[in-house]
């Protein structure tokens, strides 16, 4: 087996193993065993003897036993199989003997890639996939030539590169054109969601502190028109506080079935509307984040769910990125159902009530009272993520209000909610995110775990108004350009590959068949632009390849004539009297007289031309000689010019 074929087999095997290891879901021990294939292939390259058949058999059996044990321990057949393939690749690296062996490696690598696709949605998978595509195509091509007994592969570099490129182009075409269904039939995606806080029916007080230190990106948002932030992305509301945790006790959820791709809630007139595209990372929650009052949500799926407080939920938690388009208005909810639930207070409310009354006793009007309480908190309390445990006998919220006077959003929002409730104003705690960082590369907002936020909604004059009592803090996020650029790439990957859907196909089809729009401007879809770029590049490369082939294809009639005409021009420029009607004999004589060209070259060139042009036969060797002479004559002409 040629060394180059072994090398590519090794590369494909390594890519297969990396695809699984990079998901981060492989046991480290199996990952280390997987790395062992490097040693196996090294031995193979050095020509060391491969493992005997019995040893391969014993190791394979042991692998199967390990698989059974592994399955027994972690109860996950998928992960167990994935880990078994890591061991198998390593064993196989010590057993590359026959022509069929590399093919086994290719199939196992394909299986690994397939399993990795279920374990991750990361852009790294995209890079691995791209490498896999290129190397598998090259390897199978090499496999073909090896099976035909070839040992010299240099002449096939060009077609190999061309076919790899062609495969990539066709892969993209197939990818966008294979019909999509809204979701799988009964499969499951094993990629893990990000652990979040604040979006379940019970939220422990103080739990936000942990996530506020986490820089993981949970959401990316493009907003049109680009209103200056920060933007409050509303998640869930909570009505019940027992002094230790918030609960959503009402949770009256109803389903909203879609009309084609939208959920029409209420379309008001004359109020500012704005639109946002949101790419939500897989969270351990089913909440959909919205602005103040959405009137339309476009997404996949047959229905969404909405609760009485205007929070939206997916059909179920998803383990892949979720894309939706949100249409909102600057308006407030005016739903007055369950108002009594928003007046609930914990047992020890008296001190809080006293404080609230001190602040708001002289103020008339509910709105003014609420604003006064918010301003009081903003002025007199400090933002800090580092809070101490309250002394015994005092609740955390009392400690915040009366002792430490330091806390983070959860403290402020809880305090204000309880303060409002204590004086009879219905209020609720809202959890969500507050956008803070904009990525100028993709013109979108990056929303991280650390942007998790809670604020207050108070029912005033028949409307639920939003108040944020937390003092503004400057959060420094990583602003390295390269990181933001990479994040933009990740977003595109997420949107146009991982999140590509039937909805996108429909939009693309609509776009493509809308000829008027096509005539006016360039595609709006970056993805379509990329597609067009790839297609254009492929056409250009094909043309370049053809032109190069023409240069090499010596039997081409026009090529010969063109060379001869070029030579005639050269002779003419060198002072020879050459006319279009000159015979080959005359051209030969004139060329000789110029004394610029080697006589032997000129004679052989003209003779070859006569034969190739007029004999009706073509001879590859003679053609090659003809073109070689033509090159030499050109060189002689140039040299002559240089000498002068």
């Amino acid at each position: 087996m040629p060394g180059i074929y072994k090398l590519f087999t090794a590369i494909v095997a390594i890519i297969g193993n990396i695809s699984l290891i990079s998901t981060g879901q492989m046991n480290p021990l199996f990952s280390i065993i997987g790395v062992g294939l490097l040693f196996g292939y090294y031995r193979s390259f050095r020509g060391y003897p491969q493992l005997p058949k019995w040893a391969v058999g014993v190791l394979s059996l042991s692998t199967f036993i390990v698989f059974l044990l592994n399955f027994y321990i972690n109860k996950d057949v998928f992960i167990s199989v994935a880990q078994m393939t890591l061991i198998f690749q390593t064993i196989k690296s010590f057993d590359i003997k026959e022509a069929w062996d590399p093919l086994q490696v290719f199939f196992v690598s394909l299986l690994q890639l397939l399993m990795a696709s279920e374990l991750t949605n990361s852009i790294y998978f995209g890079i691995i996939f791209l490498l896999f595509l290129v190397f598998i195509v090259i390897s199978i091509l090499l496999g073909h030539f090896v099976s035909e007994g070839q040992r010299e592969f240099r002449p096939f570099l060009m077609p190999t590169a061309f076919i790899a490129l062609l495969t990539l182009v066709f892969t993209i075409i197939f990818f966008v054109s294979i019909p999509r269904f809204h979701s799988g039939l009964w499969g499951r995606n094993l990629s893990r969601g990000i652990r979040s806080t604040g979006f379940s029916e019970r939220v422990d007080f103080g739990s936000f502190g942990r996530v506020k230190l986490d820089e993981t990106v949970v959401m990316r948002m493009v907003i049109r028109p680009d209103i200056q932030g920060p933007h409050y992305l509303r998640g869930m509301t909570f009505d019940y506080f027992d002094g230790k945790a918030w609960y959503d006790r009402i949770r009256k959820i109803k389903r909203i079935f879609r009309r084609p791709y939208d959920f029409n809630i209420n379309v008001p007139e004359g109020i500012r509307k704005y639109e946002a595209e949101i790419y939500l990372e897989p969270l351990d929650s089913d909440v959909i984040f919205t602005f103040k009052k959405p009137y339309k949500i476009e997404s996949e799926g047959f229905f969404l769910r909405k609760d009485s407080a205007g929070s939206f939920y997916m059909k179920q938690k998803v383990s892949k990125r979720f894309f939706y388009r949100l249409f909102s208005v600057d308006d407030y909810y005016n739903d007055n159902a369950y108002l009594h639930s928003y007046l609930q207070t914990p047992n020890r409310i008296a001190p809080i009530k006293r404080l609230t009354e001190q602040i708001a006793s002289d103020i008339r009007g509910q709105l003014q009272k609420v604003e006064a309480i918010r301003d009081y908190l903003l002025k007199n309390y400090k933002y800090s993520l580092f809070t101490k445990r309250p002394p015994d006998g005092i609740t955390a919220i009392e400690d915040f209000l009366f002792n430490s006077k330091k806390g983070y959003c959860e403290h402020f929002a809880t305090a204000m909610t309880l303060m409002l409730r204590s004086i009879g104003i219905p209020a609720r705690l809202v959890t969500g995110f507050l956008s803070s960082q904009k990525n100028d590369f993709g013109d979108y907002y990056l929303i991280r775990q650390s942007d998790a936020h809670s604020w207050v909604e108070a029912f005033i004059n028949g409307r639920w108004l939003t108040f944020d009592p937390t003092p503004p803090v400057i959060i420094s996020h990583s602003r390295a350009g390269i990181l933001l650029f990479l994040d933009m790439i990740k977003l595109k990957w997420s949107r146009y590959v991982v999140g590509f859907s039937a909805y996108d196909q429909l939009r693309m089809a609509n776009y493509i068949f809308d000829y008027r729009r096509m005539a006016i401007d360039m595609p709006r879809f970056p993805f379509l632009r990329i597609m067009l770029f790839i297609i254009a590049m492929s056409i250009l490369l094909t043309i370049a390849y053809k032109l190069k082939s023409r240069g090499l294809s010596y039997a081409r009639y026009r090529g010969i004539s063109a060379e001869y005409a070029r030579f005639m021009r050269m002779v003419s420029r060198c002072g020879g009297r050459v006319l279009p009607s000159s015979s080959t004999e005359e051209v030969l004589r004139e060329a000789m007289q110029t004394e610029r060209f080697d006589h032997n070259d000129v004679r052989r060139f003209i003779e070859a031309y006569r034969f190739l042009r007029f004999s009706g036969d073509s001879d590859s060797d003679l053609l090659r000689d003809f073109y070689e002479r033509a090159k030499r004559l050109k060189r002689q002409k140039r040299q002559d010019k240089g000498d002068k």
Partner: protein
Amino acid sequence: MRNIHLKREGRRFLIAVALIGFASLNTGNNLIYLIFSMMLSISLISFVVAVINLRGLKGELSFKEPLYAETPFKIEVRLQNIKTFPSYSLSVVLPFDSGQRLYFPIVNRGLNRRSFDNITVKKRGRYSIGDLGLMTGFPFIFMYLYRRLKYDGEVIVYPKIIDVLPLLKDLQPYPSDRGMPRIGQEGEFLFAREYIYGEESRKIDWKATARMQKTMMKVFSKSDDRLATVILDNGGGAEDGIFEKAVSVTASLCSEFIQRDYYVRLITCGKVVPFGKGRTHLFKMFDILAGIQQVGVGRCPVDELTEGLNMLVLYTDSSGFSGIISQCTGVIDARDL
């Protein structure tokens, strides 16, 4: 006409494509759709590139010498590529029983010549050039695409020639240069043979011409004329292997006698090649022998055996020529070889 032959790898690959297609549908995972797209793409390219690879090609075979069964020969293949780009990894499939492939790693635009040595054909016979095919598995390893070239004509593979001198050594009279059989008086009419272009018309044997439906010439005896009749009994139903041996021995006898400047006649059940000499005559007999088949068992009447050597080649007990065995100079049983 194109044929596709899926290899084992190709069948497995298609099964994998189907499974991954189902998995993508099942999970709705776009990353599996991506892998599925790659595999569809590889499948499509595998077929399309192979089709393009076989396009715009013309092939010719050139033989430098007559072809004999089981005897190595040299062949020159000329492939003309009229496409603007090269074809890769092509095989020319020879039209013989063995289906041998002659491999071309690259077929550049224009004429590509390549010679191949030590080609052998197992069986004699007439092979249609129309069966000459081009085959490619390029670019991948999943299938072979086969295309037959549209040509008329045939290649004749003659029977294997063996050394028959040991068989002739015991014959009486011994067919050596000395002690040759006497053939009539000098100038006496001996037999009629086929007309050769340019011969004098006054020696045409009109009676024989009418009988044979082709122009025949009278041959008159000379003092050094020698005659040999080789009779192949193809009227029996024996195993192919033994029959092939009989045909091979017959062809070898004809060749041996022609080399010794005999007038040689070939008689088989159903076909007769009249007396003649020289290389052209030899290949007339070889043409008959190249395509000869066993016919139904029965008598094969022979009018009379002329003077000279009469060699009968048998391969069964029930010879159709049993009536003339006693008149033969020698009888060779192919089963004994």
